């Protein structure tokens, strides 16, 4: 276990800033080399990563290996994989991130998390192979079914396909454009309002729909967005 932090985090200033302002502080601190800018950048990073911690953890839990949905992060490995994803996010933001907007930052985090999960699964399998057995051995899934460990070659192919997909959607502006391209006005409205933080009931009230209808339009809209991403690859 890590040692507890001896001091309360210095949050009052940075925590009042918007995500956009924090991203600007982070980028400026990384690029200027000035000590005060650097201090502010670290504070900005602390708030940003705290605000996005649950998002990254959630992406880790929801991760399914491309083309092999039975390969996922084991439940007792979630904390470790989340830790790895945050490491990867930071490394990416310090070395290769060229964006300046919240959308670009979030897309970079999502991509970094996805790759970290893939690496975690590979490392896990290497360890299992080291323990013994074949990669094609059957194991029991959470649902109690016997499933095969994935074939390396197929996994690589699926990964390349997924890479092509995620690299094509590096900016959330593209997601916004995809929402606008949806054919159903209510679906567009639901996705926009969800992205602004409204609840099902609030959206239902605004659009004069039932909450059930809102939930249905929301999930159908997300399916459409995902299907469009897949067909663009």
């Amino acid at each position, binding site marked *: *276990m890590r040692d507890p932090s001896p001091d309360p985090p210095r949050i009052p200033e940075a925590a009042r800033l918007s995500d956009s302002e924090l991203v600007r502080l982070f980028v400026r601190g990384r690029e200027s080399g000035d000590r005060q800018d650097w201090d502010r950048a670290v504070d900005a*990073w602390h708030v940003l990563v705290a605000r996005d911690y649950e998002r990254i953890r*959630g*992406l880790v839990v*929801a991760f399914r290996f491309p083309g092999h949905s039975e390969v996922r992060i084991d439940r007792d490995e979630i904390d470790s994989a989340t830790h790895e994803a945050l490491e990867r996010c*930071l490394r990416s933001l310090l070395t290769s991130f060229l964006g300046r907007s919240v959308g670009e930052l979030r897309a970079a985090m999502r991509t970094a998390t996805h790759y970290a999960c893939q690496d975690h699964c590979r490392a896990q399998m290497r360890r299992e192979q080291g323990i013994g057995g074949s990669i094609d051995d059957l194991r029991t899934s959470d649902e109690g079914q016997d499933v095969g460990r994935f074939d390396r070659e197929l996994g690589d192919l699926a990964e390349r396909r997924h890479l092509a997909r995620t690299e094509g959607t590096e900016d959330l502006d593209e*997601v916004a454009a995809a929402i606008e391209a949806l054919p159903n006005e209510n679906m567009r409205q639901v996705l926009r309002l969800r992205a602004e933080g409204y609840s099902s009931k609030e959206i239902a009230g605004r659009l004069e729909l039932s909450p*059930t209808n809102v939930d249905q339009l929301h999930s159908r809209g*997300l399916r459409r967005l995902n299907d469009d991403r897949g067909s663009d690859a």
Partner: protein
Amino acid sequence: MTTVAPMPELDRLLGEFADAWNAGERPRVQDFIDRAPAERRDELADLIEAFLAVAPTPRYSEETMAELMREPAVLASVESARGRSGLLPSLLPRLRERARLRRDEVVARLTATLRVPGAEPKMARYLHQLESGTLEAGGVSRRVLEALASILGARVEEIERAADAPGLGGGTGPAPAFMRSVEAFDAAAEPPVMASAPAARAPAADEDWDEVDRLFRGGRGDPSAW
């Protein structure tokens, strides 16, 4: 994404998750996936992933925000950004947890592997500094990195890559206060230390280095550390 018929139960679960997310309640993704019928769990996972990609930052209360800022993985990431040890403050504790080893157990094994009997206290201090981001990672010898890799069940390249990762300040930022008390020098007044400049790590004339110092501060290619 599958193309099977939509299911009201999944719509409802996703809606419930999104409401809890936006309200800043930190909903657990796994709990929601577990509530879906077994044959539809991957579909719900896909939907939640798609939602998280575009979801707004939740309306966290101050209390929740303070909790999030103290999450071990968040603190480790901040220490990595702030410190001089690359990504080692994030990587080493995680590897230690995975190997189910306490820090004192790693110290004991490190002391034995590096054949420096009796050096446990100093070794413990250096390991603590590496995990806290206060030791300049470029000074750590490859022999130490190899020993750590072996003890923690990792590849040495992984540890080396983490050690070489730049921090936000590139090593020029102020060291945390506790380092000044341990090391008895004012890091804030110290000139920048470049990882590739062995001379910058050379001991001061009045500083008495031993083998442990050379192992942790002598540099990656320092032959005297072998």
